[in-house]
């Protein structure tokens, strides 16, 4: 421990946590949030939705199984910083290709360990999400608190643009296949493994889907492919004209932060509604909600974890879902739109799903899992069904 680098995490309200640095050295800022998932730290690190956030894991021992090339949800880790109670001194898994610490260091991400993460979680739960600064350089508490206070706020920041692909590209079965060989499962309902999905992947008709990348996760792409879609990933700022008539469906991806500034996405979606089937997840769900005329708001401390119960309105089933969002659609505002609520969070009654039958549907949570339970894969089937039965229609949107 004598060689350990001291690290400090300061919150904008003046609360300070001291610990030991791991990963990269330096200073970073972001909104501090906690994730209650027991497994899947690598997927969390690489989920673009965490762009701009310093993520604390409530599970105390992190890094046990190291990292591998197959579980990444993106091309790089996106978290602004990583907070754990303890970093594993060893990576032990037949799937491991390296240690967590080494991975963070390689990607220039600062981590802090030996933190009372339960205290941090309780603090955020009671006071709400807030900005923070993590540093191995600045040791003066006041100074670091000031850094936290001067960092940018999540609210109003257009983070999706920062994580989105700059160019259009295809995502094919080959990408899935390559990962399937290594114990990787894309996630399915009570799971045939990914390799099984591939063999069943002989759909009579394949659909061309444009996936808007607000921060898309690989698992979503894999599941679209395995449900019979040929996927083209397009930048977040792609216009309606660029996709209309070229695709059988449009997918609005997950992504980081506040949906309000994603005006380009909202406008494009408004223009496409009724002309092409739309399916949205997470930020994509919020973007769809806003396009339909609903409103969004910031949750006190967000939902981040793999154990949130969601009830479907069309069946008595309760799905255990993976969630990662700090904003949500206002339930009352949905009443003025053509959409109906299809899913509800049982913990706090927040909106988890919307649908305009025959036109579009979306969920706030992550049916693709990665990490998290595989209870909700049927939504990808539902998208396929929507595309196969789609008839263009006029959607009566409220004027904005």
């Amino acid at each position, binding site marked *: *421990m004598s060689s350990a680098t001291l690290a400090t995490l300061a919150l904008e309200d003046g609360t300070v*946590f001291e610990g030991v640095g791991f990963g990269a050295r330096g200073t970073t800022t972001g909104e501090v949030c*906690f994730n*209650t*998932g*027991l*497994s*899947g730290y*690598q*997927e969390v690190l690489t989920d673009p939705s965490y762009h701009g956030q310093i993520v604390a894991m*409530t*599970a*105390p*021992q992190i890094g*046990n*199984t190291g990292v591998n090339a*197959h*579980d990444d949800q993106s091309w790089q880790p996106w978290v602004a910083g990583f907070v754990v*109670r*303890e970093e*594993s*001194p*060893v990576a*032990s*898994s*037949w*799937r491991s290709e390296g240690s967590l610490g080494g991975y963070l260091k390689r990607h220039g991400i600062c981590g802090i360990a030996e933190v*009372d*993460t*339960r*205290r941090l*979680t*309780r603090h955020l*739960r009671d006071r709400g999400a807030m900005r923070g600064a993590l540093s191995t350089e600045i040791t003066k508490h006041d100074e670091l608190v000031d850094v936290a206070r001067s960092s940018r706020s999540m609210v109003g920041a257009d983070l999706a643009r920062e994580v989105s692909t700059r160019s259009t590209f295809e995502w094919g079965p080959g990408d899935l296949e390559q990962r399937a060989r290594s*114990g*990787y*499962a894309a*996630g*399915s309902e*009570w*799971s045939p*493994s990914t390799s099984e999905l591939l063999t069943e992947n002989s759909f009579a008709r394949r659909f061309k889907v444009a996936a808007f990348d607000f921060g898309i996760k690989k698992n979503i792409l894999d599941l679209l492919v395995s449900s019979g879609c040929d996927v083209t990933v397009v930048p977040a700022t792609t216009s309606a004209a660029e996709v209309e008539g070229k695709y059988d469906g449009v997918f609005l991806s997950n992504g980081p932060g506040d949906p309000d500034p994603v005006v380009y996405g909202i406008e494009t979606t408004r223009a496409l509604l009724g002309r092409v089937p739309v399916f949205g997840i997470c930020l994509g769900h919020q973007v769809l909600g806003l396009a339909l005329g609903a409103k969004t708001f910031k949750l006190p401390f967000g939902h981040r*974890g*793999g*154990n*949130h*119960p969601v*009830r479907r309105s069309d069946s*008595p*089933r*309760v799905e*255990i879902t993976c969630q990662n969002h700090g904003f949500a659609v206002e339930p009352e505002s949905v009443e003025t739109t053509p959409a109906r609520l299809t899913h509800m969070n*049982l*913990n706090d009654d927040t909106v988890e799903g919307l649908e305009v039958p025959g036109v579009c549907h979306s969920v706030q949570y992550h049916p693709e*899992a*990665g*990490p*998290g*339970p*595989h209870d909700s894969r049927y939504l990808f089937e539902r998208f396929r069904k929507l595309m196969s039965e789609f008839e263009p229609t006029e959607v009566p949107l409220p004027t904005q």
Partner: protein
Amino acid sequence: MPARRDIGSILVLGSGPIVIGQACEFDYSGVQACKVLRDEGYRVILVNSNPATIMTDPEFADATYIEPITPSFVERVIAREKPDAVLPTLGGQTGLNTAMDLAKDGVFEAHDVALIGATPEIIRRAEDRREFKKVMQEAGIDLPRSTFAYSVDEAVRAAEELGFPVVIRPSYVLGGGGSGVVSTPDELIPVVSEGIRLSPIGEVLVEESISGWKEFELELMRDRNDNVVVVCSIENLDPMGVHTGDSITVAPAMTLTDVEYQGMRDDGARVMRAIGVETGGSNVQFAVDPATGRRVVIEMNPRVSRSSALASKATGFPIAKIAAKLAVGYTLDEITNDITKKTPASFEPSIDYVVVKIPRFNFEKFAGASRVLGTKMKSVGEVMAIGRTFDEALQKGYRSLERDLDGLGGPGIQVSLEDCLERIASPTEERLHLVERALYLGADPATVAEVTKIDLWFVTQIARIVDMRKRLEGVGFLGDLDVQSLKRAKRLGFGDAQIARLVGSSEQEVRARRVALGVLPTYKTVDTCAAEFEAYTPYFYSTYEDEDEVTPTGREKVLVLGSGPNRIGQGIEFDYCCVHAAFALSDAGFETIMLNCNPETVSTDYDTSDRLYFEPLTFEDVMNVVEKERPRGVIVQLGGQTPLKLADRLARSGVPILGTQPEAIDRAEDRERFGDLLADQRLPHPANGMARSVAEARAIAASIGYPVLVRPSYVLGGRAMEIVYEAESLEHYMNTAAEVSPAHPVLIDRFLEGAIEVDCDAVFDGHELYVGGVLEHIEEAGVHSGDSACALPPFTLGNDEVQSVVDHTEVIARELDVRGLINVQYAVKDDQVFVIEANPRASRTVPFVSKATGVPLAKVAARVMAGATLAELRAEGLVPQRSLGHETMRHVAVKEAVMPFERFPGVDTLLGPEMRSTGEVMGIDSNFGVAFAKAEAGAGVRLPSKGTVFISVSNRDKRAVIFPAKRLADLGFHLVATGGTAQVLRRAGVDVDIVEKVSSTSGDGSTGGRVLNVIDKIGSGEVELVFNTPLGRGARTDGYFIRTASVAAGVPCVTTMPGMAAAVQAIEEIISGALTVRPLQEFLAAMAGRARPDRREDAGRARPDRREDAGRARPDRREDAGRARPDRREER
């Protein structure tokens, strides 16, 4: 959807006595279920033969049948009660098997009873290995390759096809009984033959060995809307090959990537759906190949299990309670999570700590038993520990284990690196200490992981403990221990005592320095949600972090110290007493705080006390809670030896001990001081002395005369106690016993041969004595009281003898200044009542006495400890008007011990002063014979009503054997006996055939024409009952072979003459068909109704001070007992 209203009454099956593989976790689950079902308005009928359970307290069910959980008795209960439904999934394997038998016999159909929770079809799919395999294959679940066999030949062929090693698993056997890994045909044969015998359908599974793979378990719940949640994942530190009950297990799973975990979760739900469990909890076990990740399903339990109790305690999610609600029609989303009070039960707990369970073994009780762990469960209990890291939880666990360990490792093991590496290859109780030692001696973690197949992650964690140990050893002087190192050590779970040992200081000094440096424990909450929501349930553990989130209240508090892990000699009985204390003191307005580390128990249910600290029962951990909570007092006399051992140190540290003071406890336990007390009071006691050397022992024994009873001081459960008949044995004993307890001398008592042993359980408040009951043992003195059957009221003692017992007890209680419980053991010989020993604390028989008499002794004692007088409690109705608890009994209650010999093949079953029973049952009825018959049936002893009885008794018993043998012959039994016994019986006119002894048959293998000897006859099932009293103790006698053969063949074997007499009485009752069933509530009501008042008093009038002369034990006044006790404990 609200609860089902098409059913009004539900029969709940308990799990019966505590046995290896089925312990008090089923009391915990049963209590939860009964509470839920009654709250929902159902009439609850309970069947459970175990009197030491909370669930059999009369207020937990509308009708409580303390009857054997066998198909025939349960059928009688069904016929009498006509329940609408039976819930079999909370009573362990016993409950499930009994339900299966009843279903097979058409009992449910005949009485129009529904099975809820699991149907016979579901149970069969899960339990029948052939069916299970088929269902799993259809569901696309990977399994180890396997074949069924019904004979040894078939098994050998199957094994050769699969390739050795293979695992043998008998179908339908509890706790992995009879299973084993075999590597050659020679090894296979005995395992398969035993397995076929054990299996009720004569079937064994021969399976590909996946020994060395990683083992995991998932605890799942499903509701009738097909919603499935995983409550908890559990990883076994010990790889496949060790029964999960004997493995160190960790929650949550630590070494799975999300991809692997979610795949396992999917499989778990598919298994549950495929088996068809519609509502309730299930446990699915998996093995994972560490090299490839291949995952196979090992088995599933369609019921609440030991693991689900652990999962409940590990997460705060009450599986049994929810299972009961689901069984009556609720869905998960309709049930609120108690802990958050706002989120539903349809979620998956997230935990922000690490839980470690460590099994507790008792091999020292079973000389000759193999100590290598395998697929057959051998542990008798377990501890759970919670920490923020694995290391912390592991070390807290070892500290909790009651093994005189201060953490992992320890000074005891001095083995070379080479030996370590060899020994850690096979799983044993000590393995992890040897792993620590190997790492300490320089072994590379990867090597250790390779040799043990323990995941490298766990080994690396242990290596950190080793590094810290070295750092502490290098400190040399406590004053040099810096705050960072100390904090780091605490965060790795090091105890103060352990640190003291390593730096060469004392625990007291380490504690003082730690406090001075501000390194203090912080308490965190177990909240099911990793702090995402506010928690309302006060369930806490300690760790060393920044924030202590627990705030003490300003209420007046009592801290109850629990009894730690179950082990032989200290089981559920003590937990029962602690739970009663919590209930009684809470009712009396105190805030109750429980401290315990046993996850199986009711005491560690967060509903039992106002606050629960799940912590090791060590001085350090108790003091920390005391300093935090500042209770008015601490109760140490209810949890057995565990808290008693701490009492003196706590008192010396200024902690107020409630009730009898440690000084008095010492006076009772110190034989010299206690001997002085008896002499002063002129109470008769066997001549005795205390020896510190062999020479001294010889001199004492010679002066008091043989036989003598020898034992080390300060032990529970008769550990290392022996009856010695001559000087040579005494010397041998002294040389071995000195190792058992070097700090304490050896006690030598004159052994009263053939005396009747008597127990008296009473409460003393400083003024008067309330005697719960005087129990007469069936086996003579010399058999440990925990292993001996006993009856209440006494069945042969005269009134004057009972009066002497009561009088002596009062004198001793007064002299010791007891406040609370006292148990005194007596031996009655030649009309004289000798005091054997006194224990001013809860005894093992407190629950039995409470249940038999309807007076909750532990509650009374707890109130007395907290300052109430018996007179006050009598006014409240907690204590009856009579001062002798069993006085108005119209029924007889018999307690019988349950022995684990089947788990330890080859161990001699002879009863003696060393306690070896794991649990107890109660038989209750209108006379002794019937009550004894029920007790035997409850204990799993199948007394026959016809067939062949084998008798072989020692010379001194030959006179006494005539009458019972003649009676058996009259009842139509065919008697066979060895030569000497047969001769005596024939002379008495009893018809008997002679059978060869073992030793009289030629041992050279020339079997041509030889008469079948008794072992052959027992083995071949020709004998239904064996009576064998020992000719001498020790291995390899004829008797030894007869007794072990009986165990192997599952034939009841009675080894004492009083036991034989009782068995014959029971058999008479069985033949006469007198075995009916009645609920406890009826027996107790009849008892209360009988207490005719000699002199009525106004109910409203304040009672005068009833203090009486010290010499007079019993007030001769009685009052109206009809209004004495409320039928139910008030809702808390």
